[in-house]
């Protein structure tokens, strides 16, 4: 009997457990559906994300005593930052400290992990955004400006305008012709190689496609992968598409295609994929399981001869000697009408002001400072993989890596941002181009017409913006 009693107790406990499981299960299943309303609920998410990593960098000087007394620029400016990696995080903190020392305005930096910052940007800007925040030039900037989530800072450009070339001003201008963005730096997408290794092997920089394939054949003979390549995360392959597209069809076509004015079913796009398919034998044969970091290691460890990526690949060379050994050149010309144009991707990172900024004057003062040569100098002193957007910035301290970057950007006739910065995000993301490009890489010899009409019909299915 004792046994029986025990058993019934345990069965009851079991049932209770079952009930708990059912409650949990019910909720978790419904959460799938709850996702739909996450946008309405997400302000609290964004709000809770930001302060959790809040770190005030205001130096404990007299500046911190300054309360909101003066009507003009004063008090505290908040700054939402996606500079979450060590190097840029320290660099931006140094810039803010210098700003506080100069103006007496405090800056509170809210750092959010880079990808998370992007993922929550919509909700963040609608809820309680910081006065100023880090962002990218291109479509992504114009989109938020057009949605009324950013403040027009044309007056700031009145002061800092002389510091930037027209190209940067255009990149900072919204659809309405006003400025919404202050550029800090950019970096080119280039073919990276190891100098010492190439000297040892006797390789020469290829200028044309013929040189390039010849070099590739030689590297294969030497047991190397000619071009390191990785696309596990979906976006690095966009750089390859962009450069081939710009070399074959030119910058204007790139812009039109990204804006939806050109069709993906255009034979010009097909030509890009055909060219890519011809070049694929020189690429790493198994890119889809690798991250760009791993591919960069292939280059650094001399398993691969070259790597086409943004110069941020240099971050993977952690010791100075290896970093100094890296050099790069623009992607070779393909013998088309656009060879002279030498268009490249050179994405610009910078800053914007949210439409809900509380301390407007302080925010504008900060943006003005961020557009100064001083800010660029301080930032690049700590992060040497990029080059200043500011033309007054001190280039004498550039290392060889930065000097090459500056030269290549200077020689480029046209500068694009990047596929996912130049087109609408719902089209570029994991939903759209990321998976389409992977589909191509898995089967480069597939029926390209069918493949491209699939891309176009996906684009057409997106809601009008």
């Amino acid at each position, binding site marked *: 009997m004792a*046994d029986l009693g025990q058993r019934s107790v345990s069965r009851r406990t079991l049932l209770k457990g079952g009930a708990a499981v059912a409650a949990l299960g019910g909720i978790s299943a419904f959460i799938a559906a709850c996702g739909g*309303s996450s946008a309405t609920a997400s302000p609290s998410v964004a709000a809770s994300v930001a302060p959790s990593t809040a770190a005030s960098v205001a130096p404990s000087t007299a500046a911190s005593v300054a309360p909101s007394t003066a009507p003009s620029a004063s008090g505290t400016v908040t700054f939402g930052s996606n500079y979450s990696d060590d190097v840029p995080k320290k660099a931006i903190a140094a810039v803010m400290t210098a700003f506080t020392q100069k103006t007496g305005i405090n800056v509170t930096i809210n750092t959010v992990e880079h990808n998370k910052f992007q993922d929550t940007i919509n909700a963040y800007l609608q809820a309680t955004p910081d006065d100023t925040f880090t962002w990218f030039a291109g479509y992504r900037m114009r989109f938020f400006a057009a949605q009324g989530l950013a403040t027009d800072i044309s007056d700031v450009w009145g002061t800092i305008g002389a510091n930037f070339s027209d190209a940067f001003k255009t990149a900072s201008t919204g659809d309405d012709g006003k400025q919404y963005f202050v550029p800090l730096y950019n970096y080119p997408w280039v073919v990276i190689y190891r100098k010492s290794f190439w000297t040892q092997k006797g390789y020469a920089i290829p200028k044309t496609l013929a040189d390039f394939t010849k070099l590739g054949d030689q590297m294969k003979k030497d047991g190397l992968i000619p071009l390191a390549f990785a696309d596990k995360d979906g976006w690095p392959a966009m750089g390859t598409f962009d450069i081939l597209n710009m070399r074959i069809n030119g910058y204007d076509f790139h812009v039109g295609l990204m804006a939806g004015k050109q069709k993906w079913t255009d034979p010009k796009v097909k030509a890009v994929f055909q060219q890519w398919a011809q070049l694929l034998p020189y690429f790493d044969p198994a890119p889809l399981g690798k991250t760009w970091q791993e591919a960069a290691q292939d280059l650094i460890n001399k398993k691969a001869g070259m790597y086409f990526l943004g110069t941020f690949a240099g971050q993977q060379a952690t010791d100075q000697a290896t970093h100094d050994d890296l050099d790069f050149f623009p992607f070779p010309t393909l013998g088309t009408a656009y060879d002279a144009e030498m268009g490249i991707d050179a994405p610009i990172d910078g800053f914007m002001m949210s439409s809900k900024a509380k301390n407007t004057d302080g925010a504008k003062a900060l943006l003005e400072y961020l557009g100064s040569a001083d800010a660029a100098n301080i930032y690049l002193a700590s992060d040497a993989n990029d080059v200043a957007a500011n033309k007054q910035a001190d280039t004498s301290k550039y290392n060889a890596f930065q000097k090459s970057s500056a030269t290549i950007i200077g020689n480029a006739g046209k500068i694009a941002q990047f596929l996912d910065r130049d087109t609408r995000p719902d089209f570029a993301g994991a939903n759209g181009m990321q998976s389409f490009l*992977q589909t191509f890489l898995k089967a480069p010899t597939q029926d390209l017409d069918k493949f491209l009409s699939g891309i176009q019909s996906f684009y057409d299915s997106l809601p009008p913006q």
Partner: protein
Amino acid sequence: MSSSSAPPYAPPASAGGASPPLRARRGRKRFSVLTRRDKLTLSLMVGIPAFIHIFLIWLPTIGSIVLSFTSWNGIGGLDKIKFIGIKNYENLFANYPPFWPAVENNLIWLAAFLLIATPLGMLMAVILDQNIRGTRIYQSVLYMPVVLSLAIVGFIAQLMYSPGMGFINNFLQAVTGDPKWVTSGTAIDWLGTPGLNFAMVLVAASWRHVGYIMVLYLAGLKSVDNTLREAAAIDGANARQVFFRVVFPVMAPINVVVLVVTIIESLRAFDIVYIINKGLNGLGLLSVLIANNILGEASLIGFGSAMAVILLLISIGPIIYYLARTLGKEAE
């Protein structure tokens, strides 16, 4: 997560005490058996769970069903929401290549858990129930992965499977001395080969699921009356017969729990795949596609909601089955 809320269907049994609600209703015409205090207690005990239930479960659910017929980028007020009929569903079926592979993956996941991982967990439980030597150690070892979140399992899986730097390929190279195991092209690309990568994700997820099922089942086995086994043995049943003819039927309630847990675990699979590559390259699951559409800059709220509704329809079947069973039992 409002898991703290009482199960919504649980009757506030302990509140009534001596006055069952039935009798109360019968006498309501003239006077109430319930005191004011009783009424207050009752309304609080029913009201709070009902409130939580309605606002945290029904409102969002109905919200996403409504949103699935709209187009909205999540920016601006509710007036920006445009109704577009069933266009989201049309696009889902016709213009969105990742959708069907994701449905297929969800079903494969379910099948793999139901047919391989769960039976394996049950087998482990049965073996460990035999009081073999070191059973505690085995239990701990098998249970260890369960305390990890699937996101962490995803990180571990990447360290194992990475083609050039992962443990498996480097181990193969160290053992065989053949560099082909870590050379791109000849190395096995565990995470980059469509099909294989999904299988490897399932292996990693099962690693955790087996331990979970084992613990649930072991607890159930411990509660089975030993005299039943002895009686069966005396009647000449062998070990297999004892299990399948006696123990398994007695364990009916826990079998249902295990079944439902397995189905729920399969349908809510998300983190491991999201961590590895956001569901690209043949790893797509419905939950991940929903996240990709709704989170992030894409913000196709309506389109993502349409997918959420599909997942809801798929999930609701096993839930209704389970609830009907549990509630039916309680009513008995």
